């Protein structure tokens, strides 16, 4: 234990003296968080108001066949303009978002009180045209409905009799669960920070130590190599947790001070602390995994080449859930990344975790970490470790 503490203390001092790297590491978490929150909000708010409140330029083909409709639209912030000559190409090349076409039989159908045909051309895969599309759909529905009711009234029929149902929607989501929804990006960001926060230092204290040729002397100390390894794991996991702490703090503060949030984003101190605790195991797990990897690789460069794969790992469970959504079940708390995702989401939604869930989580993460660490300890004690081949 004394040896482990000595290694921990030395690695921590060594690490903190690498000021630039430490600052860059901490600043990334600290600046990225408010950047994301404020940036996304300002951008989204601006875009939404712009699209909903601005005058919508709507190309209409054969506009002269439906003068009443065109007149009605122009009273509702829509400016009807000439259609492009080639509708298909104009939409595909994003010159226009959508085009209305009044069917040649429209006047005749209208007069005979048949449903009159209007075609809407659009590209459903264009996210940028979403607002324009929903505005036009809404306007046309209103117009159709309004005229239909007038027609019924002119025949002496109560227009309300055309409604067979009255549907009242009661949303039971709480304020916290709503804000959890709008914070969907937060878990991945935090899990990644915790998982790989200490990565640079793990590689530096393992593969880097070998490259700087100080590892042989270190492994000659009269102590099991695993103690030295554990001291290093403690120091680097500690740094990962520090980074996570800074990132969480930055989120908390940017939620509190960011102006004009589109949706309420709230993160209480208790929730932030809960999340931090929930992330501690993944921090240790990440550091252990990297210790194993960099103990088996020859150089720092080789160890770093694993980073891009590791960065993708935290997304995999979320991706699977996205493709195949299933309800939260207890076994999920044993899968790394998935469990952290569930935990953070649960905490953000303001729900309470059961003891069983916490038990499964803590137990499974500990087992996985211990398995990885024992493997790493075997590598650390081997000849290969010291010789690097």
């Amino acid at each position, binding site marked *: 234990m004394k*040896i482990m503490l000595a290694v921990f203390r030395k690695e921590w*001092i060594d690490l903190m003296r690498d000021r630039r790297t430490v600052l860059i590491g901490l600043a990334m978490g600290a600046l990225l968080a408010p950047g994301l929150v404020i940036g996304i909000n300002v951008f989204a708010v601006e875009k939404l108001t712009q699209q909903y409140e601005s005058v919508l330029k709507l190309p209409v083909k054969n506009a002269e066949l439906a003068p009443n409709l065109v007149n009605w639209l122009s009273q509702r912030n829509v400016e009807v303009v000439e259609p492009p000559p080639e509708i298909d190409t104009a939409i595909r090349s994003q010159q226009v978002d959508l085009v209305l076409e009044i069917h040649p039989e429209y006047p005749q159908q209208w007069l005979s009180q048949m449903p009159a045909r209007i075609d809407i051309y659009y590209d459903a895969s264009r996210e940028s045209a979403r607002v324009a599309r929903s505005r036009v759909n809404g306007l046309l529905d209103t117009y159709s409905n309004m005229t239909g009711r007038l027609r019924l009234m002119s025949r002496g029929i109560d227009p309300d009799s055309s409604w067979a149902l009255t549907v009242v929607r009661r949303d039971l989501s709480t304020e916290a669960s709503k804000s959890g929804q709008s914070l969907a990006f937060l878990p991945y960001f935090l899990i990644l920070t915790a998982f790989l926060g200490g990565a640079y230092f793990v590689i530096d204290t393992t593969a880097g130590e070998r490259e700087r*040729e*100080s*590892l042989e*002397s270190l492994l*000659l100390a*009269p102590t*099991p190599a695993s103690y030295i390894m554990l001291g290093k794991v403690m120091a680097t996991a500690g740094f990962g947790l520090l980074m996570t702490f800074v990132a969480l703090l930055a989120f908390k503060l940017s939620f509190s001070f960011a102006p004009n949030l589109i949706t309420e984003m709230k993160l209480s101190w208790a929730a932030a602390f809960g999340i931090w605790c929930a992330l501690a195991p993944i921090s240790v797990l990440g550091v252990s995994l990297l210790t194993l990897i960099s103990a088996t690789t020859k150089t720092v460069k080789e160890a770093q080449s694993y980073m891009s794969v590791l960065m993708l790992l935290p997304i995999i469970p979320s991706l699977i859930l996205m493709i195949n959504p299933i309800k939260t079940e207890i076994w999920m708390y044993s899968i790394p990344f998935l469990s952290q995702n569930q935990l953070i989401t649960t905490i953000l939604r303001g729900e309470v975790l059961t003891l069983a869930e916490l038990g499964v989580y803590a137990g499974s993460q500990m087992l996985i970490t211990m398995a990885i660490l024992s493997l790493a300890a075997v590598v650390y004690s081997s000849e290969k470790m010291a010789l690097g081949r």
Partner: protein
Amino acid sequence: MIEINNLKRSFKSKSGIVAAVKSVSFTAQDGQITGLLGPNGAGKTSTLRLLYGLISPEDGTVKIDGIDISQDKISARRHLGVLPDTRGLYPRLTARENILYYGELHGLTHADCEAELSDLIVSLEMTEFIDRRCEGFSQGQRTKTAIARAVIHRPKNIVLDEPTNGLDVMTTRGLRRFLQRAREQGRCIILSTHIMQEVAALCDQVVVISNGVVVAQGTPEELRAEANELNLEDAFVSLIGSEEGLML
């Protein structure tokens, strides 16, 4: 005292299995400096790595003060101070911190190391740079720091792999004085080298290794007599059977 008996070890390489150490036996006595002399690639570093238990032998034993290193690596290493072939320091720590860290790894507190450290600072002439960070140290400063950290726990046995490699004359002389003092203190010292002057100036016993085999051992005088040459240099060339890899 270090007793080495019939060590054998080979390595896998791309071109097949290379027998680095085929048969090495010798005993290094307390109060003596034992030189391991041989051309580059003769198996000196591998022999030393077997000696301090970084790699395990395929055959043979190593005993440090009577403790078999393959049986009890940890206690054997307590009796051993090693300057390995690779002598990297931690660039962001000062020389003092580097040395004290190794004291801690041997289970000593900073206070325990105090007296020995001030001794080493004087005998290795480290006053000038002891509290500077190791980044940008000269070769000599690096070697001195590495030696100090190897012996901070006052080991009875000291093993140095080519200690004067790349050092200037002044530093080399200082280092020799340090080793001679250690001998006077009754410690057992083994150093490997391919420099003959070093052997002539320092060693009480010489073990000549070539191709992983001990080809001769004895005092410098005995070796001269055995090879029937007047000059030590000619004696080595004749013992090894080639001039390759030796330095005057």
